[in-house]
């Protein structure tokens, strides 16, 4: 199973590293992200982040020992050929923000550097808006994706919508 983290889930993970290594307990939200990751990982799930989030961790945040704690545990998803087309459809037919549409587009058309995988099974998010909007449009998007993939060569013809996992602390 492939789990894709959105920017905010990575942010909570990053902040939990700062907190725990400065002697502060993680917040409930951060702890919630960590335990969910641990549970998925215990079942052999692979954890992915997007190229954009990877760039934040490697180009903008300039503290390798801190970011390595994340990078050592994840792999990166890159956009495959049909990614842009699907992203345009997502932004054009829903009220999803561009960033939210992008994470869902990675969920269907993200690939690794050697292009041996396609998409992610689950998108892990803390964004209620993303989850709500995705589920409101899910059946329509499923149909649009079916139409799009019909005209695509393998392996893109097998692309699917990911499921979303919303994490929230009580």
């Amino acid at each position, binding site marked *: 199973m492939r789990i894709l983290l959105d*920017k*905010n889930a990575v*942010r909570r*993970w990053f*902040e*939990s*590293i*700062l*907190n*725990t*290594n*400065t*002697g*502060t307990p*993680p917040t*409930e939200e951060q*702890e*919630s992200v*960590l*335990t*969910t*990751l*641990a*549970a*998925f990982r*215990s*079942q052999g799930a692979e954890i992915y982040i997007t*190229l*954009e*989030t*990877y*760039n*934040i961790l490697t*180009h*903008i*945040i*300039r*503290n390798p*020992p*801190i970011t*390595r*704690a*994340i990078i050592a*545990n994840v792999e990166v998803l*890159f956009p495959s050929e049909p990614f842009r087309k699907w992203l345009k459809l997502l932004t054009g037919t829903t009220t999803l923000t561009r*960033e939210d549409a992008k994470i869902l587009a990675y969920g269907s058309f993200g690939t690794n*550097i*050697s*292009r041996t995988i396609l998409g992610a099974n*689950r998108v892990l998010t803390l964004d209620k808006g993303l*989850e709500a909007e995705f*589920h409101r449009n899910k059946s329509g998007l499923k149909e649009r994706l079916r139409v799009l993939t019909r005209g695509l060569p393998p392996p893109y013809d097998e692309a699917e919508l990911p*499921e*979303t*996992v*919303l*994490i*929230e*602390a*009580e």
Partner: protein
Amino acid sequence: MYCKCNTRLKMRESQIVVRVESALKKAFEKQCEALGVKPSEAIRDLILAFTRLEMRHRFLTGEEPLTRELTVARYLAMSEEERETIWRKWYEEAEKEAVNVELKVKKVADTPR
């Protein structure tokens, strides 16, 4: 949810994820049982693996640089709104960089081996 150490937290999911959560919980407990470890300890170790720094057990002092302008302490002193704003700004910068990386990756992938 998954173990005693996490009872005050919950994960709200779409319909399918409810089923996944239940399956995960059972599989996690089964795996712990097979390994002879308590679920709470196993999950604690996994969590540690996600947050451990390779710094010979040194704590961060807060003075470490995080970005060109920010230290760890300054970041931690930010409000939730400020953190959200700065991550949004970082994301916009990272998006521009991603387009360049994307082109390089395509070039590497298209190169005959």
